[in-house]
């Protein structure tokens, strides 16, 4: 049986980590504004960008 590559497993872990962060009930937590921008907007884009950043680090480290 071929074992799954560590890169794939790490990325899948990121996905499983992202699901609760991007759905309710955690999504209901951020509120208010920061520099007049609603915190929930910053939160969504922040988590999203964070996932992309981590995915890039995981994926590109192995390919070199």
């Amino acid at each position, binding site marked *: *049986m*071929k074992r*799954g590559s560590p*890169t*794939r*497993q790490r*990325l*899948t872990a*990121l*996905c499983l980590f*992202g*699901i609760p962060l*991007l*759905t*309710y*009930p955690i*999504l*209901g937590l951020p*509120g208010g*504004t920061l*520099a*007049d*921008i*609603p915190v*929930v*907007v910053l939160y*969504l*884009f922040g988590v*999203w*960008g964070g*996932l*992309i*950043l981590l*995915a*890039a680090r995981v*994926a*590109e480290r*192995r*390919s070199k």
Partner: protein
Amino acid sequence: MLSGWFIVLLSATYIGVLFAVARFGDARADAGRSIISANVYALSLAVYCTSWTFFGSVGRATSGGLSFLTIYLGPTLMLLCVGVIVKMIRIAKAQRITSIADFIASRYGKSQLLAGLVTVIAVIGIVPYIALQLKAVAASLDVLFDQPGHAIHLWGIDSTLLVAAVLALFTILFGTRHLDATERHEGMVAAVAFESVVKLVAFIAVGVFVTYGMFDGFSDLFRRAAAHPELAGLLELDASRAGTWAAMILLSALAIVFLPRQFQVMVVENVDESHLKRAVWLFPLYLLLINIFVLPVALGGLMHFSGQGANPDTFVLTLPLSQGAESLALFVFIGGLSAATGMVIVETIALSTMICNDLVMPALLRSTWLKMEKRGDLSGLLIGIRRVAIVLILLLGYVYFKAAGEAYALVGIGLISFAAVAQFAPALFGGMYWKQATRAGALAGLLAGFSVWLYTLLLPSFARSGWIGSGFVEHGLFGIEWLRAQALFGLTGLDEISHCLWWSMLANIGAYVVVSLSTVPDALEAGQAERFVDVFRHAQRAPDARLWRGNASLKELVDLLERFLGPARARQQLAAYARSRGQRDWHGLPPDAEFVHFAEGELAGAIGSASARAMVSSVTREEDLGLEEVLDILDEATQVRAYSRELEAKQQALEVATGELREANERLRELDRMKDDFISTVTHELRTPLTSIRALSEMLHEDPKLELEERRRFLGIIVSETERLTRLINQILDMAKLESGRAEWTTADVDVSEVVRESMNALEQLFHEKGVHLDSDLADRLPPVQADRDRLTQVVVNLLSNAVKFVPGGGKGRVRVGVSADEKAVRVTVADNGPGLTAEECGVIFEKFRQGGNTMTDKPQGTGLGLPISRQIVEYFGGKLWVESAPGAGATFIFTVPLPGPEA
């Protein structure tokens, strides 16, 4: 100046550029230097962002706030499940898959029926999506032409129909230029990637214009929006819609794989699996960038056009125009055109391939017409069918737009399509991971899910626009309250998309699982199930070819290839195949199972696996293997793999064991050698005193006249030599006792300082004789340790006599003894200024029969047992004995004896 003709010219120029890019891509592919890099692949996935994203997201944001983001979060999460996508790509390559219909049909025994059903669902499901693009482009044209002084005469034709016609023509020219009907289109992928860049730049441009041109940055924009009470709801999430939020993420996660165009670019057009590693983050990054300005543009539009009733779906155009930024508006128009054309091209090419391979070809194959045309080259016919299919799809899109398009915003139309393609999920994912899934199960699941979708989503969309009666939506079919289309069985409180997704998935998965479990797959299905589920374990060709048995003729198969691929391409592929089998000329190839497999694979690339199988069986006489035999062959392959794995594991275990044995053997040899050394040492040691005892005794015996003085001297020597012998034998016995654990110990409270003092006194004479200084630094009133007093004395005496042996004599030798204690242990050090030890020697001197100095040249200075015995004694008390030394710097032997714990 903006004029209608200028806009037409600009659009034509842009499309010309796209053609150039596509042609360049195709030329490079033909030359074997593909331009499809990881970045191009990732950007081509952005064909996901259509007019929906470009125009519709802003419209969605004006009514649903942040919920537009779910459509992009789902794909982000889905792409992270790289394993699933890699498996899909691997299967598609191994099976020469041309479309998602082909994929599903191929898994369930290359079923033409299933392929046809998937195609029908895909076409009907995607039609609203096509309509969305037409509507968006038409609306953007209307906005541009509605400007005063730019009224354009549309020759009395509906502008939407005009757009549809232009797009159809464009797609035909673009996607079906080649006469070779293979599954890959590198030029198209390159053009789509190019378009992706254009639409991203265009959208960001208008976003920056609104946010920083019309407003003073994000903070200013959000502050001013917050001042409008009617906009406040858009800036926060509505927790009561948590279910919808999750449903949208799920829906979009499925859509990124199952939309025919996404399957096309992600799976079919993939040239290298490693490209996914880039796509996994670059594509989500693209999605993030194109969404940053959606909310600002929506809010800006709402504030700017407050109360004017402007269409929010066209804010990206109307906002720049309201500020007189006509060039920007044109650029945005081109971006929107990019978004629409990219989608329409890829989607219609994917759908037309499906229609051609899975609907039209099977019908033609059944009819007698094709048999009469048997001699001709059919690759032209294939292209013709696809072109007609493209026109039909766009026409259907137009019809849907006319029937239902006006009742929905852009995103609402798109979501209907998403829910349709989500129906493929159970059959496709199940097929990849569940061997028991059967064709009947897949058919049942798809039919059930599709029917629910039709009833709860598509028909109500017609009803909403008044095209059909809305009785079944309001009062239920036949007036039965439970059958209300958007509140099935009384399920209310959900939006229509979640409602449909919930019921259709329940019906789909339920039917799929129940029917799969209660039916038995036939031989072909079982074989395909094995190849799909275990794609990573199957070697390239070996088991595939064995699953076919029968008679075939080379000529007939070659004819078949020439008819469908065209003669030139067929010969090219045949030559390549002959080379791979080590033959110079394909005419000499045997028409065996492997060749049939090759021919079927090539045909599958052109006309889909189901049709290819039908064609191949029409010219070969295949023996029916039967389910049992297929399973046997597959089992055999599985068993062989299992055995080889077992063998591998055993071999590894064997290697480990061999290694251990070798080590043990080495150790034994070493011990044996040391024993030999020891015996020669002991013999030597024993013989020296024995020789002198014997010589002196003989002299005493043979010469009775020896003087008394002389006799006394001789007897003195005999006594001391005997003592030496006794000591040696005692030590050997002592060692043997310690090692076997039979030594007797009497443990009591012992004052270590006192023991050291007594030992020094006992050896004082020895030190004095050799002229060695003996200093001491003994701490007083040390706590007593638990030890055997005599044994401890033995250790100290041994260390002291060792020291005196190795230091230089004649007043230069110096030995220093110290006793100290901390809270854990008492520590005794014996330091000398002898020659010292190398790092290696520091270790070996504690081994039995090893001695300081070179045993080969020097006379042995001890028995080689003193230190090992000492170490055993100290370790018995729970302490440690070691040496710190460097060559020329003397040696310090240290041992510790632990103090009893406070509770002991």
